[in-house]
């Protein structure tokens, strides 16, 4: 055939086919996605501090391990309340003349997804400690330590944000560990990752491949199947601050082991703190606790399982709460005031 003896025709045909398919599979869909997705009504542009934080997020290559996409599959439910949609990324535009739009979606999940981290972990104290050395809050973590985002000073100025790093992670640092502007900006940027509600009437995509709920087998007691694993729920929601041994971190997160609130016969205060957060011990140097239960959409069954885990672990010998009493208190607490 002539085409195989004529380089102009052969290579012309090949590049023509390739460009045509490129247009179909990449350029036109990209243009379409860029031009037809506006930001959600509730979304706000990043503040200047958050923009600076995004710069550090890009600089340090966080995307290598952290995705930002809640996929529409059931297993991703732990990362957000709804699957991500194109509009969630609409505010992500070209960084500057030198640098392209930041890649946020990522392709590896060596670390947790960050799509909703602003709701899942809103505690600034936790993030700063975690950045200084991730293993100070999550013992098994393999994330790099970003100690160059912190200064060491002999004395802290009043406006300085001091990070109370546990002794074993100070690595001989004797002065005060101060978060730099960069660290604070990065945390501010991370805290801005919040999944927003879709406007009324717009249906949220479904989570696919859900687990089938198996009906309880006849003849077996229902208790076995309905009681949730408190230890797993504690690990997913509470452990990063209060630690697996319930002892918290000195100067950062209070211990639950032997805590009078946890051991209190009346579960109301404990439940209120889980659902609405707590800042009662900030004066002692402890961080502010976010409203974990509300942020993570915990159900009464899950909260009860967590509370019972806390009440009966690490030598704690508190009274076990029942699901009925938590269900009763649940709505009351939700609409009530924050615990003091």
């Amino acid at each position: 055939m002539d085409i195989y003896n004529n380089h102009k025709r052969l290579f012309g045909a090949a590049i023509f086919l390739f460009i045509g398919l490129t247009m179909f599979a990449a350029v036109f869909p990209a243009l379409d996605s860029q031009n037809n997705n506006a930001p959600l009504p509730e979304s706000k542009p990043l503040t200047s501090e958050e923009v600076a934080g995004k710069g550090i997020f890009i600089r340090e290559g966080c995307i290598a391990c952290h995705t930002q996409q809640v996929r529409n599959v059931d297993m991703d439910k732990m990362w957000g309340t709804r699957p991500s949609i194109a509009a969630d990324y609409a505010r992500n535009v070209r960084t500057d003349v030198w640098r392209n739009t930041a890649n946020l979606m990522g392709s590896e999940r060596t670390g947790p997804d960050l799509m909703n981290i602003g709701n899942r972990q809103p505690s600034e104290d936790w993030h700063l400690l975690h950045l200084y050395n991730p293993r100070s809050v999550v013992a098994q973590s393999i994330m790099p330590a970003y100690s160059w985002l912190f200064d060491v000073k002999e004395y802290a100025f009043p406006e300085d944000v001091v990070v109370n790093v546990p002794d074993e992670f100070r690595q001989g640092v004797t002065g005060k560990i101060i978060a730099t502007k960069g660290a604070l900006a990065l945390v501010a940027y991370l805290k801005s990752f919040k999944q927003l509600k879709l406007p009324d009437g717009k249906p949220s995509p479904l989570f696919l491949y859900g687990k089938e709920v198996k009906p309880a087998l006849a003849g077996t007691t229902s208790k076995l199947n309905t009681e949730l694993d408190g230890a797993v729920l504690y690990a997913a929601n509470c452990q990063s601050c209060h630690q697996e041994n319930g002892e918290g971190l000195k100067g950062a997160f209070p211990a639950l082991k032997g805590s009078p609130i946890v051991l209190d016969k009346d579960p109301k205060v404990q439940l209120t703190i889980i659902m609405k957060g707590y800042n009662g011990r900030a004066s002692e140097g402890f961080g502010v606790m976010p409203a974990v239960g509300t942020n993570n959409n915990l159900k009464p069954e899950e909260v009860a399982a967590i509370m019972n885990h806390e009440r009966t672990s690490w030598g704690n010998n508190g009274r076990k709460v029942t699901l009925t009493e938590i269900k009763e208190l649940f709505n009351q607490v939700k609409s009530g005031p924050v615990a003091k």
Partner: protein
Amino acid sequence: MKRSLFFLASLQMMAYPVLGETKVPGPTAVEAPGSESALIVFLVVVFLITMAGLALWLFGNSNHLEKLADRADENAESWISRHLQDFDEQQLDLLIKRRGTRQGQQGNQGKGATWKKPFLLFLFLSSGLTAFAQSGEASGNVWTNPGVLITVTLILIPILIAIYIVAVKVSHLVRKVRTSQIRKNAQKLARSIDELAGEELTQELTKRRQALRFRLSDTELSGVQAPEDKRGLLHHIAEVDSPRFIAPKKKAVKRPDIDPTLAKLILWYLGTATFWLVLGTSVGEYLGIKFVAPDADHVSWLSFGRLRPVHTNMVFWGWSSLAMIGLGYYVVSTVSNTVVASLKRGWYGLVLINASVLAGSLSLMAGINNGGGEYREYIWPIMLLFAIGLVITLVNYLQTIARRKTKEIYISNWYIVSAVMFTIVIALVGYLPFWQNGLGESIAQGYYMHQGVGMWFMLFNLGLIYYFLPQQLNTPIYSYSLGILAFWTQILFYTLIGTHHFIFSAIPWWLQTVAIIGSMGMLIPVFAGTTNFLMTFRGNFHKIGSSYTLPFYLVGIIFYFTGSFQGTAEAFRSANLYWHFTDFTTAHSHLTMYGIIAFMLWAAIYTLVPRLTGKEPKQAWVGAHFWMALLGLLFYTIPLMIGGTLKGMAWLEGKPFIDSVVLMAPYWLWRAIGGTLMWAAHLIFAYNLYYMIASKTQGDLQKAVFAELEKLPVNPINQ
């Protein structure tokens, strides 16, 4: 005869109850109401299969016995003539001798088989008993009750054991019967052979006896004269006097001399590529260690997030790309039967691409990157250097092909030139800003990174293989048509598959589906290509053992098939559930970029460089490079695939995320071990390349002698 008939009959009768009892549990199990337990069905099926197998085996045995019985009567003469060729010298001697003396010999028929009757009767009875037992336990109908299940199992165990023992006994019996049958036949035959008459047979036997005595003189081919190489065909004869620890491989074939200026250019491409390989994989090795020891350092320039793109870009644009372009200069000009259009342009390309990798690596470590999209982490001014290098290369290749002295364009050049053309388009789509906002960035990213690996590295390497493989095997490529099919289908399907990195994401569902279909379609070029290469290998597989380059080709081709097929499998939505985001992806990318691309490049380099320099690497070191790279790759990828799957399963089960980090620890350790092997292999490769290029020729006594001789003045003999 009668005895064996009786045996057969009893055997048949025993087989019937065995067969019969298999039918008993079947219907009962199926009819059992509400029986949902897969376990029961499984047990019943296993039992039925065992029984059916046993029955078949017994039938087989009985048939065999019948055949034996049929063969009882044999004609002695026909038997001898049939087996004449099988007799050895001693047997023939005996026959001939006996025919000379012809003495009758009385044999006594044995009565060995009489004991069998009562035993068979016992078997017959006990087989009936087993049948009885079986039907007894099977008559129950409360199958779902665990108690019944356990009881049934407990009963089944002794029954199965009994059946096994019976089977063993029967098998012994059959063997005994067979032996006695043979003995009986033998006696009969021997007697009738002994009585045979006829001079003709004696002659035939004697003739055969003589034929067997024939021996070769060992000089049929060589004659009796001393050997002499009159035409100068033999060189460097290696005689083996001691055991060889390493099998010797063939030396590279002498090729026509290559323009030394072109050789220099290619060697510079390969040399800088190897530099980036060693440096880039050192970085990769350090990254692998960081998974195991995250606090290895706290230096910003060496942190994981910054070094990861340094590693990937360095081995992509530094090692693979430079090596490919360098090898391309040889292939493009050689298959066009002409010289490279401009060597100067080749040098410009070399400098530009090296500058791009150097500047890019430094800027990434300093924290300046393009936004984190994989393989386009270099900011555009740096990537522009690379792109200009590519454009220069393309012009050079195209002009060389335009000046070709052959009519047709060899298939290597389709692949190579298309790869360069497409990569320029890919870089433009990835770096032009007009469609990069919002999710447009992710769509462009999926396209860019996957076209980068498939259209740049894969296409270019296929082009190289289409030249080097037939060259090295000294055989034409199996099918040109398959090459054409693979070429066009690769363009058609591969261009579509970028989005399969974002399955279940916010990218339009239809585009994800297109990507999955494209991934499926990729099976066509992969099958076509693999078939083509393996069929080219056909009939030449024996050459692998005696070559130090062919193993690299074979490994590259095998990984081309498995790695690409794995990519298709990963794209399916159901597989993606498990594997997406896990370390499986890392394993896959190393299986392909290393198993296919790096191995093919090494194959080509070990083939080409001895032609350019006339020096060959040390064979043992090439072997060390090959085995360490291959084993390292397997140690690297297999644990990551296992760990990645377990990780995906843990996520599917909704386990806390940190659990999946903890479970990966041993697999990451294996990865670091495999990575270390690979890295050490690269050091050896670098040494081999150095040896091929710059090794001082070792003191050669022969050359030295002649050099000295030339220096000596020609003295008259009668001094």
